[in-house]
């Protein structure tokens, strides 16, 4: 653990392979470029009970390397000879974690199909591992996002989870956290993929969120307990986020954002990429708009995604609100506005308007942030 800056420094150039990106330590580069071959897809499934994979994951954690298959080094041989897999499994169990090896039949097939799947996944949470094989969608985006991005992320998380999709994200601040929260709100299933050891909550601010995710879904990581968060682990984490899902949604991203790395991984594996259009003048939207220019599917509502999954779309029920509230909603749909602007546009007095807006908020038709009201659908 030479450097754990505690920053998700996914600023790497996207054209450069992960192995050659700045910030990736020499050991990890060697693991990627030197000692990797193709992952052993030919091996019979379930062979060895996943012990080999656990050795690999533990060795990767001990040597800070990114490993796809067993290296042919003396160091690894020594490590393997010393490694007590049963003791390790017992330790994981007492810590409350599970290990799902790549060779396990329950390992999500979509993730196994990417070109460098992890040796296995460490799991935290009560849910069945079959959860990971269910149709899933990734929602990713900027950590420092706008109120608009936060709202969209939460909305998509909620609606997609309500429709039965598993919402996968990275537990980061901003868009990621909101996507998880949205899914939790809808009592849906959500999976958080960590860029650090499975025992760590990073960022610490989302500890409570991680607990909630683990209670209803799963928190997963390719890293053994004790591995520190480090800048080069987050792009690697992103490949798992994209790998678990048939589609990836980018909600808000700057021009050089980690979320675009996730989108790249998704494209490389031939998965669908949705991009939420943003204001062309906003730096926070530069990345998503660039994706659109490259051919990503523009996302205008949750139905766009559901259709691509072949999930039947039914229209939301009509809102039952009073006359003043209906008038206010019409105005809010024309664009986000503050209370005073709405009062002028609708001719309502401040008290009536406040009542109408609360009615709409309770009906889930508008949300308020920083004094500005926005329509939800």
């Amino acid at each position, binding site marked *: 653990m030479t450097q754990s800056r505690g920053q998700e420094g996914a600023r790497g150039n996207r054209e450069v392979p992960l192995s050659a990106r700045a910030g990736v330590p020499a050991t990890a580069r060697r693991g990627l470029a030197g000692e990797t071959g193709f992952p052993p897809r030919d091996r019979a499934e379930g062979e060895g009970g996943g012990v080999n994979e656990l050795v690999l994951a533990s060795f990767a954690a001990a040597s800070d390397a990114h490993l796809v298959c067993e290296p042919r080094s003396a160091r690894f041989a020594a490590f393997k000879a010393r490694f007590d897999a049963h003791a390790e499994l017992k330790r994981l169990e007492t810590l409350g974690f599970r290990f799902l090896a790549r060779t396990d039949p329950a390992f999500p097939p979509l993730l196994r199909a990417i070109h460098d799947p992890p040796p296995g996944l460490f799991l935290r949470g009560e849910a069945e591992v079959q959860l990971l094989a269910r149709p899933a969608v990734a929602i990713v985006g900027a*950590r*420092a996002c706008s109120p608009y991005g936060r709202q969209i992320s939460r909305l998509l998380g909620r609606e997609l989870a309500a429709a039965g999709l598993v919402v996968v994200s990275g537990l980061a*601040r901003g868009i990621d956290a909101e996507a998880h929260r949205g899914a939790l709100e809808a009592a849906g299933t959500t999976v958080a993929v960590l860029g650090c050891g499975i025992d760590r909550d990073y*960022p610490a*601010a989302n500890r409570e969120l991680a607990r909630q995710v683990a209670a209803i879904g799963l928190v997963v990581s390719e890293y053994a307990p004790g591995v520190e968060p480090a800048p080069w682990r987050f792009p690697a984490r992103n490949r798992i986020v994209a790998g678990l899902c048939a589609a990836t949604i980018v909600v808000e991203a700057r021009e050089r954002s980690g979320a675009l790395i996730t989108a790249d991984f998704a494209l490389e594996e031939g998965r669908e990429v949705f991009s939420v259009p943003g204001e062309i003048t906003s*730096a926070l939207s530069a990345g998503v708009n660039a994706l659109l220019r490259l051919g990503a599917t523009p996302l205008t509502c949750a139905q766009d995604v559901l259709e691509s999954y072949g999930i039947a779309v039914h229209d939301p029920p009509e809102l039952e609100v009073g006359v003043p509230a209906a008038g206010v909603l019409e105005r809010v749909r024309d664009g986000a506005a*503050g*209370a*005073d*602007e709405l*009062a*002028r546009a609708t001719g309502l*007095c*401040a*008290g*009536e*308007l*406040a*009542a*109408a*807006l*609360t*009615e709409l*908020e*309770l009906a889930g038709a508008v949300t*308020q*942030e*920083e*004094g*500005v009201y926005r329509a939800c659908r």
Partner: protein
Amino acid sequence: MLARSVTHALIGLEPRRVEVEAHIDGGLPGFTIVGLADRACAEAKHRVRSGIGSAQLEWPLKRITVNLAPAGLRKEGSGFDLSIALVVLAASQQLPAERLAEHAAVGELALDGRIRPVRGTFAVAEGARRSGLERILCAPESAFEAELGGIEAVPVRHLAEAVAYLRGELRPPPAEPPNEMPEPDPPDLADVRGQERARRALELAATGGHNLLFAGPPGTGKTMLGRRLPSILPPLEPREALEVMRIHSVAGVLALEQPLITRPPFRAPHHSASTAAIVGGGSGPRPGEASLAHRGVLLLDELPEFQRPALEALRQPLEDGTISIARAAGQALFPARFQLVATMNLCPCAGRGDPAAVCSCSPQRLAAFRDKLSRALLDRFDLVVTVPRSRAEELAAGPSESSAPVRERVAAGRLRLSCALPARTVEADELLSRAVERLPLSGRGRARVARVARTAAALAGADVVLPEHVAEALAYRSPKELAA
């Protein structure tokens, strides 16, 4: 040769009876003051000696001992000067001691014998009345203040005048009420363009006495709005006015030419204020800004910039309207039933909520900013209004409603609330329960919403709380961006 007079020392706002005794004896000439006098009080001996000399009276060249009893009570300040001078003169038989015993006296002596007003005269006069004294000698500037304490004041400009009065040679004119200088009007709501929601919140706050928090980017008029709350508050009741006066008198902030307070006080301490400055303190406890704002408005501009201990100390007065301060010199209980108005930005760089700016705060900085305001404190704001930046057309609009009609509505609403508290209809109750389920509202949050809904109903002239009143009240709940 012994003489005695009664005056009062202040512990907090409470007057405590103090007997000032002088004993003159043979021996080497000297002057000693005993009885736990603080520095300002002990220095009285120099002022008294010069004052007596300047009044063309005789300084007894004997051994003089002045005792301030009870000796265990700490005496502060220069208000004992006049009493000390008079007992020394009575003990040296320059004025009749029995006549002095009927009078209380309070005032500081100048070196030329003039009498200066001191802080706390009102409370001392009240104490004198309770001790059964008939009259109080004091500086003419504080005579009216003393009379409000319920005792006849004898305004004396000079020590010589006081002596002449006590000898029965002179009858000073009775205390005249000071010139009725109209209090300067507080800033008017007409200056505020637009801001309908914030105005409405002010009106609700004024009617129901709710605490109010304005959050938003800089330059949106949060402070301007807060400063205009006093303009729509009804004047103080006479009983309230006396309470306020007592505090202001003790703190020494009472305007001498305008001792009678009719408007609710308005205090806006700077955010560098210490805990003691806000809630009161000092070795002989003095009231702080929170008590000075009793029955009025305490404006805390830039709330998160205040020291956290100072803010946390406000929780007690916000709950029960009093501050109790215990110090070595004694315990003091100050009333502090104020209405809290606060303003804050949404983040330390002040970029949040401003469409023209980008917030550059790191998550750590943002978290530290929010940590400054405890949940418990935010919970005490019944009304939270996020003030977004106004559009140009709003600022260009004509003048808005002035304070006078709003004040009338507030008075009518208050009257209605004081008669009978409107009850919630079944529908209103249902809406409230539904909101508690859907929104992150705590038990205290629910009670808060119910209170504001009651105020909204009273302002609307309704006899019961309807769902629309609950809905409006819900719009002023604490937004999630302020929650940690």
